[in-house]
């Protein structure tokens, strides 16, 4: 038996209603629920990844700022050290030069004093020798003993005159 082409059949309507409901529940359970669950999980994972990336970026930025600061500090420090060392070296060299100069001047002075002393000694030795010689000459000339005091005075006068002539 066949139904009419455009028939409205109660049995078909009831069965179709049930079948549609079953298919609705089935699709919801077998397709939509698992897929939506996985889509939500993926969304959560993506959000997490984005959050992590954002955190990492801000951490990296903080580190970069820190390093830049440290580098600047280190440069400044090294420049200061260099300046300090240069100044110290300059100071030291100045000191050494000054010391050398003063030492040289001391040695020169010492030599001059020594020379002076030598000259004095030679002078006094010459003087005593000359006085002896003069006494001898004078004894021979006057043939008499001259008073020792007059003697000395005469010698000195003589030496002085000799020295003046010189």
């Amino acid at each position, binding site marked *: *038996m*066949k*139904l*009419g*082409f*455009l*028939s*409205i*059949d*109660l*049995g*078909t*309507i*009831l*069965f*179709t*209603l049930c*079948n*549609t409901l*079953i*298919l*609705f529940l*089935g*699709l*919801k359970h*077998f*397709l*939509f629920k*698992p*897929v*939506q*669950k*996985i*889509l939500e*999980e*993926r969304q959560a*994972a993506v959000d997490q990844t984005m959050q992590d990336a954002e955190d990492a970026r801000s951490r990296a930025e903080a580190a970069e700022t820190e390093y830049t600061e440290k580098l600047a500090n280190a440069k400044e420090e090294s420049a200061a050290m260099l300046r300090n060392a240069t100044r110290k070296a300059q100071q030291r060299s100045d000191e050494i030069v000054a010391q050398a100069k003063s030492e040289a001047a001391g040695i020169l002075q010492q030599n001059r004093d020594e020379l002076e002393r030598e000259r004095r000694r030679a002078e006094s030795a010459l003087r005593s020798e000359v006085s002896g010689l003069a006494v001898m000459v004078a004894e021979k000339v006057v043939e008499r003993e001259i008073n020792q005091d007059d003697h000395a005075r005469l010698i000195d006068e003589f030496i002085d005159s000799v020295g003046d002539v010189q």
Partner: protein
Amino acid sequence: MTSAAMMMIPKFLTGPEELTVEGPKVLFTFNLLGLKINFTETIILEWIVMAVILGLSYFLTRNLKVKGISKRQVIAEMAVDAITNLVRDTMGKRWLWFTPYIATIFCFSIFGSLISLLGVRAVTSDFSVLLTWAAITFILITWTKIKYGGVGGYLKGFADPIPVMLPINILSEVATPTAMALRHFGNIAGGSIIMGLVYYGLASLSHMIHLQVPVLTVGIPAVLSLYFDLFSDFMQAFIFIMLTMVFISNAGPADDEPA
């Protein structure tokens, strides 16, 4: 060609001998609460279609993963995504819970129409099936109107804008599901009749030029079948769900508060 050779050609190769336009076959009839209920071939076909759809869903959603997904999962996700976006764009976020029903009607309609490619009646060439779906849409429209406007608002809507419009409003209310059901049924059933006519005509033509096997029916109908079976099946399913979505969401308030 001798008559002996003609006898050897199997019956199914000789082409249709007659063309009949009939409804679905009644397999058996039983009594339920005093009502005579027909169990037709449409129901069996519906079960096959349901088994295919649910089997496909089950197959596509095995081993779902968040990362490194399989091709099957891509298809499942694309399908869910596409239908969800369609519902969101057409009906608004408030109606997202409605998505599985739209998917149900869409799949049921498409597969129910395409099953005719296997040589059986299309589920959707049974008017009762389309009438059922249209009735569901009608009930949902009415339910939405009452939900957002109250029973008073719903009844007042029939006298809008003037009470004289009452008969016309009632008519338009009933016309909505009737037109939906008839449009879908007419396209699919009409398409199958046209294809039947084409096959019958080409077979007759083959016999007229003394071909025992109707060779003309090979190839030529396939071109028409592209439209009447593939394109039309898809279009009617799409039109049906679009109308369902538009009518139901229009029954509610227009402004869509963020869900």
